[in-house]
């Protein structure tokens, strides 16, 4: 019984980790592109 619980918990953590890792990679790509644009993008011209 104890072993089954550990197995279920382990599978649950594995699933969470995999889903989270894929999503985090998407976060990394999307926010990375946006941040690089912020870092290297042209400053908006000031109009007076």
């Amino acid at each position, binding site marked *: 019984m104890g072993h089954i619980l550990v197995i279920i918990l382990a599978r649950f953590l594995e699933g969470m*980790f995999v889903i989270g890792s894929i999503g985090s990679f998407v976060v990394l790509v999307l*926010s990375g592109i946006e941040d690089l644009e912020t870092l290297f993008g042209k400053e908006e011209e000031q109009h007076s």
Partner: protein
Amino acid sequence: MASFPPTSPSNRVRIVVATSVMLTFISYWRAAAIVLNDLASSAFYACGIAEQAVGKSAPWFIVGVMLFSFAVRAVYVESCSMFVRGGVYRVVKEALGGTLAKLSVSALMFDYILTGPISGVSAGQYIVGLFNETLVTADTHGWIPRAVHIMFHGVTPHLNVNLTSVVFALAVTIYYWWENTKGIQESSEKALRVMQITTVMVVILLGWSALTLFKSGYNPVPLPRPENLHFTKESLGFLRYSFPEQSLTHMFGLLGILIAFGHSVLAMSGEESLAQVNRELAHPKLKNLKKAAIVIAIYSFIFTGLSALLSVMLIPDAVRVPVYKDNLISGLAMYMWGPLILRLVFRAFVVVVGFLILSGAVNTAIIGSNGVLNRVSEDGVLADWFRFPHRKYGTSSRIINLVVGLQILTILASRGDVYVLGEAYAFGVIWSFTFNSLSMLVLRFKYKGERGWKVPPNVTIAGTEIPIGLLSVFFVLLATALVNLATKSVATVAGVSFSVVFFIIFTVSEHANRKKYALAKQQMKDHFQLLQSDTVQRSTLGIRPGNVLVPVRDYNTLNHLKWVLEHTNTRDQDVVVMTARITQFGAAAYDLSTEQVFSDYEQTLFTRAVSVAESFGKTISLLVVPAKDPWSAVAQTAHNLESSRVVAGLSSKMISTEQAFLLGSAWEAIPEPKQQFVLQIVEPNGVVGTFRIGPHTPTMKNEDVVLLHRLWLNVTREPGLEKIHHHDILTEALTRFAHDYGARDHENIVKELRRHRDDDGSNPVRRIADQIQTVQPNPTRPEREKDGKDDGGGDKRPSVSNRPDSK
């Protein structure tokens, strides 16, 4: 008007409490440098710890963690865009309530308390490693005398690495304890310099490593597959009891990856510092925050990630863990391609950089812990006793003592074992991140209003926005935190015990403080009326321009207030008594409520100030401002209130000219337009030093006036210059000085000025005056240089002049 006697219908004294911390704003480069001083320091020990736990494929997990830190950074950017004064405590309290906020801050405290010991011990390991290796090199050349060999029973002389590291860590911790007790100013300039030196080291490290890879080849780093993971009994923690007959990690392949990831997570410790520096970022805040965040992420990925990979690729297996596990970057330096002497020199440079960045992290840990405990103390969850200012230095020394005491205990308990410290450290790191991401997730549903920025991607289904990005980051953090609970037995026992103890202390203190606060609140209501104001404005206080600002700190030293009241007619000129509530690094990251800023101490202080005013029968206005630096607070308040004079007492830490210099520096940092004011420092013996803050007509010495007059007499004898004025002589002299100082004769002028400073300041002038008197004017004076112009001269010193005025 906030004054005594009050003009309001009630009999209570009105006090304006500013709730915005007075800060000097910094660029995103400086903000990135402050965070990297903490974050990049983990590069010196993270890979060594991870490899001991999971085997040779550890660098891939460090790289994975550094990539994941880009996503964690995005969560912090969103939290900072919602709460300018972000940070775990603030965010968790808002989302999940006080209980979980106390729990999360306990985990954060565990993180901060351990940052000091792990950094100090690691720095010690690098230094002792170099020392021992130097002795080995000396021994191979026969430079060590036989007598020394006999002392070490015939073996090469050496120091016990762990023991000496403990001694070194204790010395660094005690040094910073004393510096923090005295109240050292945190300097973004210093952080920037350290990062510049570190960058030089990183560039050499990467460039030289590339050359070595090309010349000598490399050891492959095993890919992060379950079959390449080699866990020890220690690194499986409680799990080693679950399936003793078979390998759990091989049975669950992915679980092994997750466990290895959990052992590498301390590589991204320090992200919390991003929330702490956010408040200080210059406009446009969000854009600068994002810039700082991406600089931090890229830098730490390159330094921590690549140096981890290179260490396994270049250092042979036979020595990497046995010899260099606690000073991997030193090992990397020793296995570069090239002559030994160059490698030793580079290793020494690595040790110097390691010392700078790691000892800086010890300081950051003390400052951060102090800030967090100050904050929770202000919130009533830690007894006010802890916040009582140091009698001489005005710092929260009791909190500093508590923090440093815990750090010293941790250092001694670790016996210099970096692995044990690192394993425990990861507990605080992962749980504070997990609490933060969970809170941000809850806030997405709790507060649906506009935000400055959101972690992408977000998908709207049936009108409900699903924060996929945020959820993903939370999943990874929670899975890692839970698996770490099972695999890091030392961290779990130590971290849970520490957090529970702190949680109980917080809860009991909060309960005890409630009764006390109820009474104090009633007393405060009876005597003071607190008016909350976001910023300090003259209109809020109801005072006129040209007022006198009197900063006070210690209620036992109010002589300068008495002096002001003696010498000021308050019908013509308003007197504002202000105190700066110093909020340390960390505390500045949180919202300050009126009760937090105006505590028991301020109540006692103002009660005394009001008594002094009462004894003179004069009116004063009262003001409390939260600030990170008292000088900036005074300069900015004087600027905002259009004060003509600031009257302060003599500091117990410095002489009056130093006080004037610091206030002058703070004044220089205020953006234009700004007005000058006079600073008067009243010494206990009644002597008053007067200084003008900002550009002003200098007070001229008699010798200078004589010299000017003699020059004028000589010049007016020249044909066509009969109508010249004294100020024309000064203009010409200053123009020439600016030109020479800016380019032609900079060094000589600086040398001469230093000599004048070291003399009593009058002799050289007298000598020049004598020369002018004796030398006949040259009728063929050279034509004034047409290109001479003032280029600013590069003198960035604050504009302060001293006019001692004995009263």
